[in-house]
């Protein structure tokens, strides 16, 4: 079985669901005890990651984002793996402003296949700003 397409799907869903503000589904991409690390803070599991995004949306309701994920390097070992990739974030704020590239950096991930074999999830995603 080739798991690489499933891992690529996980990375794509992260960007699409996040930019579409579908935070409930997006948070399910994280394993129950996962760590999402950004800006020196760790957020844990689906509840912790969703709480952070819900607050960000309340703080900046007029900001829209587009995450572009490239340079995906996947190294799997059984039901675990390490993935590194690059992101660039475009943003518009307020919503009718032009899109501008505002940030870019790297994702450093640990991914795990769920015990029931159904899909891959993030055990850890660490954002490293370029």
């Amino acid at each position, binding site marked *: 079985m080739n798991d*690489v397409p499933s891992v690529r799907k996980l990375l794509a869903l992260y960007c699409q669901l996040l930019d579409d503000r579908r935070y409930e589904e997006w948070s399910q991409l994280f394993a129950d005890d996962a760590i999402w690390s950004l800006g020196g803070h760790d957020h844990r599991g689906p509840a912790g990651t969703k709480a952070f995004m819900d607050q960000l949306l309340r703080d900046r309701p007029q900001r829209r984002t587009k995450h*572009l994920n490239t*340079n*995906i*390097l996947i190294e799997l070992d059984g039901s675990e793996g390490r993935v590194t990739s*690059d992101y660039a974030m475009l943003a518009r704020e307020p919503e009718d402003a032009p899109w501008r*590239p505002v940030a*870019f*950096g790297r994702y450093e991930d640990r991914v795990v296949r769920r015990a029931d074999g159904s899909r891959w999830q993030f055990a850890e995603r660490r954002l490293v700003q*370029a």
Partner: protein
Amino acid sequence: MTDEDAIRNTIARFCQHLDSRRFVEWTETFTQDGTFNALHGRAAILKMIQGGELATKPDLRRQHAVTNSIIEVDGDTATATSDLAMYDRYGDGPVTVQTGRYYDRLARQSNGEWLFTERRLEWFG
């Protein structure tokens, strides 16, 4: 992992090593006698990059974002074309973008890894 998956990893490694200024590891995505534009061999490629902007401008942050890869595998060799958006930022200044396209030839090595035998970059004016 399929051949195409392994080739995508090589294309990603090229970008990640380069932007993280791991220049020696970066040259190792080429075969020993590989070609990058007009340069032949890892030693010449390393010398070029050590005089380039990433090596000489410490406040430059750069990302080679490579996408739209079209990969054709034929036995132990392959060709690939990919698009490049290169993001630059100096300090807290604005993010700027330039674009181009890579034209690649790769070869499978005895350890199963795929390396560039030839990589050519054309900038879009």
